[in-house]
C-alpha cells in the first residue's frame, strides 16, 4: 500500500510590502514595545519578521518620566514612559549597527517637538545601515503651537509628513503614525497621504487614567498614560477599516492589541497590509514569530494563497463569496 501524502494546509505566500519595499513577513514589532530589538534576540529569529520598529528616537537623549510608569488594566495596560531613549546619535552608533550586522531590518520611529526636528532626524537616517523606512510618531506636543499634539491637527500632521518626505532618503518609505484620540481620523489620514506619506501606522495608544483606590491618587507619575493591549483592539480595527474604506490605495500598518494570528487576520481583512505586535510582547516575548505562523495558518485555512489577496477582503461587496467556493 502506498502512503498517502499528508493532508496539509497549502503554504501561503506571506511576502508583504512596507510602502512598496518587500518584506519577508507582514508581522513587525511595534514602536515602544520592543526597545531596539536586541532584548528579543534570545526569543526568536529577528530576521524572520518584517522589521523591528524601534522606540521613538528624538534629536537628544531623553531620560523619560519619573516612576511609576505603568499600570495593568483589564486586557491591557497604561504607560507613561516619556520616550526614554538615547537620541539619534545613540541610535546610529549603538543600535542600528547591531541590527544591521545580523541582517535585521529596522523601521525607525522618529519623534520631535518641531517640524524641523522630524526633518533633521529623517535626514540623519539617510544611508544608515539596515533601515527599511521611517515611522513618524506625530503624537508629540508641537512647541510652536502651544503644545497641541501634531497628530490631532491635519495641517500640522501634513507639515511634518511633507518635511520628513522631503528630507528622507527616497528609498525609505515614510509612514505617519496616527492617534485614535481624534474626532475624524480619516481627515488626518488623508492630510498625511496628500502630504506624501507612503503609508499610515495605526493606531497609537489611547489616553487613559488609573487611580489607586488605596492612595486615592493617579497611579502613574505622569498622571495620564497611553492605553494599549487587546482592550483597544476594536477601536484600532475600526480606525483601519474607516481609513482603508476612504483611502483604499494607501498602505496601512495595523496595530492595537494584536495577540494572536486571528487578531492579525482581522486587521489584514480590514485593510492592513502589515501589522505591528506591541503590548503582546510583554506577555509573550516570542509573540511576533508566533503570530506570523498563526496568521499564515489562518490564511491557508481560509483558502488564501497569498497574504496580499486578503488585504481589505472584509470590505468586499455582500454578493462576493469566500474564496475557493462555487457561488
Amino acid at each position, binding site marked *: 500500500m502506498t502512503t498517502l501524502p499528508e493532508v496539509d494546509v497549502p503554504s501561503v505566500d506571506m511576502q508583504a510590502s512596507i510602502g512598496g519595499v518587500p518584506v519577508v513577513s507582514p508581522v513587525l514589532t511595534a514602536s*515602544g*514595545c*520592543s*526597545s531596539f530589538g536586541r*532584548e*528579543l*534576540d*534570545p*526569543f526568536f529569529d529577528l530576521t524572520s519578521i518584517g522589521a523591528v520598529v524601534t*522606540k521613538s528616537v*528624538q534629536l*537628544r*537623549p*531623553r*531620560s*523619560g*518620566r*519619573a*516612576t*511609576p*510608569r*505603568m499600570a*495593568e488594566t*483589564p486586557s491591557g*495596560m497604561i*504607560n*507613561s*514612559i*516619556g*520616550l*526614554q*531613549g538615547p*537620541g539619534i546619535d545613540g541610535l546610529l552608533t549603538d543600535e542600528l549597527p547591531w541590527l544591521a550586522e545580523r541582517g535585521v531590518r529596522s523601521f525607525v520611529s522618529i*519623534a520631535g*517637538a518641531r517640524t524641523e526636528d522630524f526633518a533633521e532626524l529623517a535626514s540623519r537616517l539617510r544611508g544608515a545601515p539596515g533601515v527599511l523606512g521611517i515611522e513618524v510618531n506625530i*503624537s*508629540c*506636543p508641537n512647541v510652536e503651537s502651544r*503644545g*497641541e*499634539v501634531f*497628530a*490631532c491637527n491635519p495641517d500640522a500632521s501634513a507639515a511634518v509628513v511633507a518635511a520628513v518626505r522631503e528630507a528622507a532618503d527616497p528609498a525609505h518609505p515614510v509612514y505617519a503614525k496616527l*492617534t485614535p*484620540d481624534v474626532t475624524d481620523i480619516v481627515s488626518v489620514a488623508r492630510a498625511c497621504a496628500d502630504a506624501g506619506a507612503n503609508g499610515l501606522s495605526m493606531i*497609537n*495608544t489611547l*489616553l487613559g487614567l488609573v487611580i489607586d483606590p488605596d492612595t486615592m491618587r*493617579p497611579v502613574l507619575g*505622569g*498622571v495620564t498614560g*497611553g492605553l494599549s493591549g*487587546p482592550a483597544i483592539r476594536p477601536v484600532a480595527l475600526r480606525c483601519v477599516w474607516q481609513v482603508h474604506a476612504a483611502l483604499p490605495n494607501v498602505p496601512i500598518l495595523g496595530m492595537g492589541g494584536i495577540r494572536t494570528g486571528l487578531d492579525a487576520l482581522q486587521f489584514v481583512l480590514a485593510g492592513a497590509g502589515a501589522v505591528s505586535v506591541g*503590548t503582546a*510582547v*510583554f*506577555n*509573550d*516575548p*516570542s509573540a511576533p514569530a508566533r503570530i506570523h505562523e498563526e496568521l499564515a495558518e489562518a490564511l491557508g485555512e481560509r483558502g488564501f494563497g497569498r497574504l496580499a489577496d486578503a488585504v481589505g477582503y472584509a470590505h468586499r461587496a455582500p454578493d462576493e463569496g469566500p474564496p475557493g467556493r462555487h457561488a
Partner: protein
Amino acid sequence: MSEDGGTRVVQLPSGERLLPPVPGTTREPLGQPAPPAAHPPVQGVAVVVGSRPVSAYTELTIEAPDIADTAAPGQFVAFAVGGPTSAMLLRRSIAIAGVGEGRISVVVSARAEGSRWLASRRPGDEVDVVGPLGRPFPLPPEGTPALLVGGGYGAAALVGLGGLLRSRGHEVAAVVGAGDAARLCSVDDLAAVAAPFVVTTDDGSAGRPGRVTGPVAELVAGAGVVYACGPMPMLSAVARLATDRGVPSWVAVEESMACGVGVCMTCVLPVVGADGRSRFARSCVEGPVFAGDRVRFADVGTLPPDLVGADAMQLAHTPAEKGETP
C-alpha cells in the same frame, strides 16, 4: 558633576556624597556595576512539581532544566499568569529561591489577582515562564566574609547565594526581617548556612523586635561585602550602613516590571553608571542587582535634573495631552 575626565565627584542634589571622602583622595571609587549574566534567557512551558505554604507565602517548584542549568543567585524568572486568554497581560517577575535537579523554586507572595493565580498552581499544572533573567550577584574575592540581609519574601533571593558562598569557603552572616513572624521567609534555609544568624520583626512576634538595620549596624563591621534583597527603604538603609563603613554592597531591587526582559522601560530607577553619570536604569536587565552605592534611593520616583536626558524632558507635558504618546 565634572566632565573633565579627572576624579569625578558624585554629589546628589541634596548635597550629600554617595561615599564619604577618604583622606588624601576625593572619594572612594563606587562599586562596579554588576556584569550581565553569562547565559541568555529561555521561554517555555514548565510543569509545576511542588507547591507548599511557607509562612504567609507559597513556594512553587517547577521543572525547568534549561533555566535551572544556567541560573545564578540573584536572577529571577517571569511568569505569564491566568492562562492563554488571560486579561492580565503583564508578567510577574519573581526571584529564583532555589535550584536543583533540573528544578527551580520561587516564593510567591499572593497579594493580588495575578500572584494569587500563580500561588494556586498545583503539581501537574503548566506555567509559561521566561528565565533566568537579570544580572546575578557578583561573587566576592576568596575569603571575603559576607553579610546577607533579607526583608520579607526578599530573603528567598539570598538562599542560593548563601549556599554558594559557603561552598566556596566564605564566612556568611545573615539578618532576616519582616513586619511580623508570618511574613518572615527562608528562615530555616538561611539559618542552615549563616552564623551569626539574626531574625527581626517590627512587632516583636519573632526574633529581635525592630528593623534589620539594628543587627546590620553591628554585623557590618565584620563583613567584607553585604548582599541585600527586600523592600526599597530597607535596601536604602542597608546600603547606607555598608557604604558608611566602606563595605561594598549589592542590592537586588524589587521594582514593578511589565515584561521582565528589558523592552518596556517601566522598571527604571536612577543609578550612577560606570561613567559616573546617572541614568534611569532598567532593573530587569541592568539589575535587579546593583552596587548599593550606585542606586540613588532618595531620588526613586522622581526625575532628578542631573539625569542624562532630563534636560530634554522640560517640554514634556504633565499630564500627557490627548493624542500624545505619554
